[in-house]
């Protein structure tokens, strides 16, 4: 199961990130997790939000280049070694991870957001290893 990630292209200019967050705030879009990948010229702000479609719509209205893409959000036990075990399974399946970041919602459970080089294949790996992924709707419910 794949979840929606909202990505925003931001030039490295003072206050630009704040402007993105302001649009989300005014439209009551809650951020559950974020990761910022940056170069010297620009950054990609990747967001897991409770209402991704609304977030994209409002950002576009306000002149930001935003994109909804699909990522896997995986629930893992909040304990040492669990992330390593997950990655080992993915590695054994021969799938490359494009990027990954954490998401913490509940006290005893943790989540990681990851984008795999091969979306279909990683779904198979998750099925084989009985790895739980969550949907955008699930996240919305947690909010």
């Amino acid at each position: 199961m794949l979840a929606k990630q909202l990505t925003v292209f931001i030039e490295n200019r003072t206050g630009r990130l704040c402007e993105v967050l302001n649009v989300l705030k005014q439209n009551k879009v809650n951020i559950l997790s974020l990761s910022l990948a940056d170069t010297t010229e620009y950054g990609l702000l990747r967001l897991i939000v409770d209402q991704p479609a609304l977030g994209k719509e409002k950002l576009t209205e306000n002149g930001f280049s935003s994109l909804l893409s699909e990522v896997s959000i995986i629930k893992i036990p909040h304990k040492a070694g669990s992330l390593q075990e997950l990655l080992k399974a993915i590695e054994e399946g021969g799938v490359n991870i494009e990027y990954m970041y954490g998401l913490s919602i509940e006290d005893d459970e943790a989540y990681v957001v990851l984008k795999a080089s091969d979306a279909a294949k990683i779904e198979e790996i998750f099925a084989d290893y009985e790895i739980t992924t969550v949907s955008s709707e699930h996240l919305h419910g947690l909010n």
Partner: protein
Amino acid sequence: MIWNETKECMSRDEMSNLQSARLVKLVDYVYHNVEFYRKKMQAVDLMPGDIKSIEDLSKLPFTTKDDLRDNYPFGLFAVPNSEIVRIHASSGTTGKATVVGYTRHDLEIWSECVARCLTMANVGKDDVIQIAYGYGLFTGGLGAHSGAEKIGATVVPMSTGNSKKLTTMMIDFGATAIACTPSYLLHISEVLAEEKLLDKIKLKSAICGAEPWTEKMRHEIESRLNIKAYDIYGLSEVMGPGVACDCEYHKGLHVCEDHFYPEVLNSATLTAVAPGETGELAFTTLTKEGIPLIRYRTKDLTSISYDTCECGRTSARISRFKGRVDDMLIIRGVNVFPSQIEAALVEVEEVTPHYMMIVDRVNNLDTLEVQVELDPKYYTDEIRTLQLLNKKIAHVIQQALGISAKVKIVEPQTLVRSEGKAVHVIDNRKLY
């Protein structure tokens, strides 16, 4: 020193007679050898016999860079290829190069003109000169080279791109002269200063051209290197470097008028402006065989003076350039038209057609940044995709312009949209 006193110091009347005789011959020559000119003259009901002296030049139609493009590659040549011994090319406005061809006689005239310029710059047979213009299709390298050989100097064909080798050889060979772009020479002066080699050089003259520069830059070059710097002008369509050069009095550039007849025109009416008034420079090549040009509009803005110079030369002098009529830029000595970027970006479907060029000078070297907007269809969540795209665009631009550019992907709707005449260039250099 004057290379060709007969020609460079002849009275204005004698010059005018010589120009008249050459023009009459030229018009007859192009009428019978170039269909393009014949048709243009026929369209305005002109026969070669109607041109009796240089005073009649204004009856003839103009020639433009677009005419060269429309007749690409050899359409304006007046001789068969068997008579052409060399081809050069410069940037065109829309992807197609502007191509020129030289007969053996043309090359002789060219080296004669460069010889005059080098002599004006106090370079002679005892000098060691480094030619640090690009060798190749660009006229700078080979043009300066042949003139330097003609005067008998020891020529070191450095070409461009290796400052370290240039400074090493400058010292080891005891170079006394250098021909390169003024911005590059300022850069070289910095390299020498950093390596504490300034007191090791024997340089005395620099012949700088291929890009506009200011008096301030000249003074800076002269004081940093303790040399004299001279301004050489030319364009490939007319010949290449050596069309004009300034002498030690720096009161304008002496035009090799017996070969290139200059007119300075009001850009709106295309009639001659008075001496001292600014207008667009046009040239008629009085002796060229390969690709003779009648009233070729250079798009360069200047003014003209016919007074005898303190150096004794009587030739017409054009002032330091005051700008361009069109949007052509000269970046690192290379002619660049914004339309070339536009044409190049069409090949890249990931970006919108909007772009902005930012030209600057950092450490005396020109920089070009091209800003582009991503097409919404190609928004991505991966940095790698953007970086690959960045590389791809940089490559496409390099191929189109012949110079490298830094590409910057910017947010959508941030680049200025066309409202009438769109501004596509921000030039932060102070060149005029």
